[in-house]
């Protein structure tokens, strides 16, 4: 069983205080943001604080689907010339002491396109990446991409949006694996408000067609919204709120990195307990 499938199965077997099955908490951080040295200890600390899966950003110079917070993260990461090889290395390091926590890489297509799908899939798999979200790779264009990933047992994870039609949800069912990422807002990452009842409806609609866990992201900004979304999904993805903490300092020294790691751990712990209490 893949690490992702095992993790979702494990959470399903656990119960929250109100007797419901547990929801995964998935923090998103950008590789080498704000410094290359922070990523590995941060990943371990997030698991400590209650993260069940880690979404690791690979930077791109033109992150069209991201708001200002994640854009700035990509720019900081690229100041260190971060490439896919750096993402692979940090995951390989992480795997030395944690072989259970699934890691999903999230990025844009061009770096993967330039590396070649086959070479990318092979290296991603070898370092211990479990799934890949490529924001600008829709199922219609994924004829070569999906088989390349699947042949190396890497899950191609796709996005759905409030505007996704029945037909596109169905098409996704044929290609997606791992989980489905439901983008709960119109707009870019980091946008403000979230309407929980419409999320609930859409998740139910997706579940009719796709037999995979549904993660919900975009617009989850605190413990309260995390708990609400946990009530109607299998995973809660948090990005911008924690990425904002990367501007506290430039993460060059150990004490600086500890400050960032502590702040992010606190946010995740609060979300974790709210999710386990309230749902």
């Amino acid at each position: 069983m893949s690490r992702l499938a095992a993790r979702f199965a494990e959470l399903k077997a656990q119960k929250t205080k109100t007797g419901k099955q547990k929801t995964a908490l998935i923090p998103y951080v950008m590789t080498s943001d704000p410094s290359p040295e922070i990523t590995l200890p941060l990943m371990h600390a997030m698991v400590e604080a209650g993260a069940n899966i880690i979404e690791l950003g690979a930077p791109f110079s033109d992150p069209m689907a991201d708001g200002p917070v994640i854009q700035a993260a990509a720019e900081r990461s690229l100041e260190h010339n971060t490439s896919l090889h750096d993402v692979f290395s940090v995951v390989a390091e992480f795997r030395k002491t944690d072989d259970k926590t699934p890691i999903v890489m999230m990025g844009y297509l061009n770096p993967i396109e330039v590396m070649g799908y086959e070479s990318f899939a092979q290296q991603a798999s070898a370092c211990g990446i479990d799934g890949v979200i490529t924001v600008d790779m829709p199922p219609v264009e994924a004829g070569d991409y999906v088989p390349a990933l699947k042949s190396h047992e890497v899950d191609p994870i796709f996005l759905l949006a409030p505007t996704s039609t029945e037909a596109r949800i169905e098409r996704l069912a044929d290609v997606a694996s791992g989980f489905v990422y439901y983008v709960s807002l119109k707009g870019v990452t980091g946008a403000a408000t979230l309407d929980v009842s419409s999320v609930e409806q859409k998740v139910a609609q997706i579940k009719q067609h796709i037999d995979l866990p549904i993660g919900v992201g975009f617009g989850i900004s605190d413990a309260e919204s995390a708990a609400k979304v946990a009530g109607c999904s299998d995973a809660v993805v948090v990005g911008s709120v924690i990425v904002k903490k990367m501007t506290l300092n430039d993460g060059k020294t150990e004490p600086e990195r500890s400050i960032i790691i502590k702040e992010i751990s606190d946010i995740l712990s609060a979300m974790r307990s709210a999710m386990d209490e309230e749902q």
Partner: protein
Amino acid sequence: MTQLIDKSVKQKPESVDYSAMPDDYGHFGVYGGVFASETLMQALDELRDAYEKIKTDEEFQKQFDEDLAQYVGRPSPLYFAERLTQKVGGAKIYLKREDLNHTGAHKINNTIGQGLLAKMMGKKRIIAETGAGQHGVASATVAARFGMECVVYMGAEDIVRQAPNVYRMKLLGATVVAVESGSKTLKDALNEAMRDWVTNVDDTFYIIGTVAGPHPYPAMVRDFQTIIGREAKAQMQEQCGCLPDALVACIGGGSNAIGLFHPFLEDESVAMYGVEGGGLGVDSGKHAAPLCAGSPGVLHGNRTYLMEDENGQIIETHSVSAGLDYPGVGPEHSWLKDIGRVNYVAATDDEALHAFHTLTRVEGIIPALESSHAVAYGMKLAATMKSEERIIINLSGRGDKDINTIAKIEGIEL
């Protein structure tokens, strides 16, 4: 697994049906397509359906033609540049005078088309990206005419370079948003406009200014711009009773070039030259010439030639002309390059500036800096041709917007 793009195959197939491109999913060979996030898909589908409808809608086409005639001032002349021809000494040089259009460039052909489409789709708000500001002005113009709100995204660096156009957009009632991310030029303005679009998809129409972006933009913008080539073909026939021997146009995203080229693609005797921004020289690395010196990749919703590094990051471009300062190019050009139908070349900043002054002094026509690249290469090419041959240079726009840039280069304060 075979590699998706076999970079070794670059010859012209036996027979090509140019009018069959793109396919239903927007592909020109391996190029083009819809590489967009799911958040945009619904909007793109809606746009594609609307565009399919108007392609054969007589009412729409009638309105479009009427606006081009009465509002834009078409047809634009095909002018025989006699003094320039004499100076160069070679083929007869004709200029397709897109600079005489309302608002001063070919960009208005496209914004009229997309503006009408926006109106038909019931959209209340128009957004656009702009580099040189010509597309921004053309978008603000149709927004004013149709009584729609207009927001134009423009790189902070271009706002400085193209100050007169920024003021024109404001006069027309548009809001100009300075984009401070990335290289602060056209590509970043496009990113920002896309972000606006996904956020305000319900009431907003995004008018892309060139043949780039996800399907259906490259095909749709081309179709609105082919009026240039269709007119030129008829005008050449009328004036000389023949086809031209060569066509020359500058390439930013490639809309004025494809507009001129497309109606001639099947005429094999007609040679075609797309001129990219050569900056400080293609060998210097400081240029905007992805077709001459880039490699295939995916940016802004389509697969095409790009300026990128070995890790797939987009690299900063350089051109004296803001309208050519773009690291990608329309996907149809990538395809036309690979099959060998069109030659893609570059003119440097210096060559373009020299051509700017030459045309201004010899013909009394002040060209846009973008168009000056086509003039520079066109003069070089004409000099190698026989006096009975004819070339058409697309004069995509007028240079009024560039006088501050030129003055600054000459060390003159206006």
